[in-house]
């Protein structure tokens, strides 16, 4: 399978999964009814259900998964380690912390753009710190440990915020959001994060050749003509924008960025550049399917998407870590 075929295959999968997600709900619809509602050939009620509830939810799952898949693939290429990922490195946690902070002080009421701006700022601080550390420490293991530390510290500050929550309503608001979910998102919520998302994607896409070059290690990558400084800044910026925007849309959802690139890599000859787009598509596909699962599971209160993602993702992380060749340091 060439990488173009792989992309086409995954894209088709995503479209089918989004349509499938749209059939599910309190009134189940079949595919033809969903398609009719999409193109305005149905009752107004159907149209509202699809356009205002089901489609935004499925699309949010896709966008968030794609953002996390792409930034995972890019960070792994930059740090030359399959365990690098926005969640593991503490980027998601820092973004969540920053956004929770904004929620806590009620800043978000003044403009709908403030929540994404806060969470993106948080993500950029984390990726920036990691990139600065990456220049100084040569061991990638040390770098991941720094990320784990960053993640724990953000989690601690987050607990502090929860601890100090002024009333039970804001507490449950924050918790809901921390667990990560795409339920009840509107097309407007999506539109607000899209400018950041798209800018981030474009930046990551531009860095893709540099990610291939980094396969050789930083010294040889510079030798074959890569500007290391520009590459680091661009990946940090791109990953920060996409991860931050995804946190603003869906809260903290972990491990997608590790699982999707890992599954994609063998199909693209382990080339970080060619794994970028399929990782995004597969990340999106996984989250749409996970969100369908959340809705199908007969639990008393609906499970949060972030909880499911971690329950599947964390063991996968351990498995990938245990399987790594020792020669990678």
């Amino acid at each position: 399978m060439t990488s173009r075929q792989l992309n086409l295959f995954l894209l088709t999968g995503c479209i089918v999964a989004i349509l499938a997600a749209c059939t599910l709900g309190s009134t189940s619809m079949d595919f033809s009814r969903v398609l009719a509602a999409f193109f305005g050939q149905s009752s107004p009620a159907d149209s509202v259900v699809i356009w205002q509830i089901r489609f935004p939810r499925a699309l949010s799952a896709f966008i968030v998964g794609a953002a996390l898949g792409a930034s995972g693939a890019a960070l792994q290429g930059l740090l030359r380690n399959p365990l690098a990922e926005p969640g593991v490195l503490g980027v998601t946690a820092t973004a969540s912390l920053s956004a929770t902070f904004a929620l806590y002080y009620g800043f978000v009421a003044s403009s709908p753009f403030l929540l994404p701006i806060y969470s993106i700022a948080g993500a950029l601080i984390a990726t920036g710190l990691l990139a600065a550390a990456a220049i100084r420490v040569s061991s990638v293991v040390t770098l991941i440990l720094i990320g784990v530390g960053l993640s724990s510290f953000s989690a601690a500050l987050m607990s502090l915020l929860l601890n100090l929550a002024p009333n039970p309503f804001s507490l449950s608001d924050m918790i809901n959001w921390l667990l990560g979910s795409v339920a009840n998102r509107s097309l407007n919520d999506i539109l607000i994060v899209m400018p950041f998302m798209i800018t981030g994607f474009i930046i990551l896409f531009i860095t893709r050749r540099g990610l291939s070059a980094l396969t050789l290690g930083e010294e040889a990558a510079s030798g074959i003509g890569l500007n290391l400084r520009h590459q680091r800044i661009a990946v940090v910026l791109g990953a920060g924008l996409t991860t931050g925007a995804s946190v603003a849309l869906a809260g903290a959802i972990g491990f997608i960025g590790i699982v999707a690139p890992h599954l994609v890599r063998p199909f693209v000859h382990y080339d970080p550049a060619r794994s970028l787009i399929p990782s995004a598509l597969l990340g999106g596909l996984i989250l749409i399917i996970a969100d369908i699962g959340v809705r199908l599971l007969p639990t008393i209160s609906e499970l949060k998407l972030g909880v499911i993602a971690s329950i599947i993702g964390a063991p996968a992380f351990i498995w990938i870590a245990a399987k790594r060749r020792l020669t990678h340091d």
Partner: protein
Amino acid sequence: MTSLIANKVSIDVAGASILRDVTVSLQPGELVAILGPNGAGKTSLLRALMGLTKTSGGSAELNRVACHKVAPQDRAKLISYLPQRRPLAWPNRVIDVVALGRFAHGAALGQLSPEDTLAVSDAINTCDLNKLAERSTATLSGGELARVHFARAIASKTPLLVADEPVAELDPRHQVRISDLLRKYVDNGGGALVVLHDITLAARIADRLVWMKNGSIFAEGTPIETLTSQMIKDVFGVQAYIGNDKHGFDVRIEGAA
């Protein structure tokens, strides 16, 4: 003509003097070997010439422009660089690693221009990697990997090559293969600056030997001029027997000086 020149280069790191007033030059058509004990400053000199380390004094210049000011992409079209440590982050295919040598020419893996494809297949032929081209680098031996890295370097088709211990840790047959490839590169008009630890090998293939010790150049000249037991004693601190017959030089280390 492309020229790479270190002019009285000094490097100080945290108060320690790593290089002092080192002057050396490289031009197409010559193979220059740098010899010296561990810690003599050989790698630091190469890194300064590649613009990877800033110099504290003197200047390292590529075509009369300070090396650290040359854009990486422009430099990569003039010099190929084989660093001492060559970690591969992913188990890529051999052909993709070699194709990375075309990075400065804008090549993207999986969609090479005809010119890039030609350069890559040339390099693969030269380094005898045809049978391994589709293999994953994770499955190769150290000697095969050394050939892959060398192929990557020459796929750039640069006039100059800077290599840090390209034959370290290789078996004799692979040492010969890589050094033959180096010589061939120079005989075809390239210029190579190579750090070597094998004195005999250096004397056999190099046009010029640069002897380094304690961050300075101790001596420089052709093998015939500079390869003496006294030189080896002064630079490496060991007693050595030097033979020179129709088969070339032979250096036998006989013990501590």
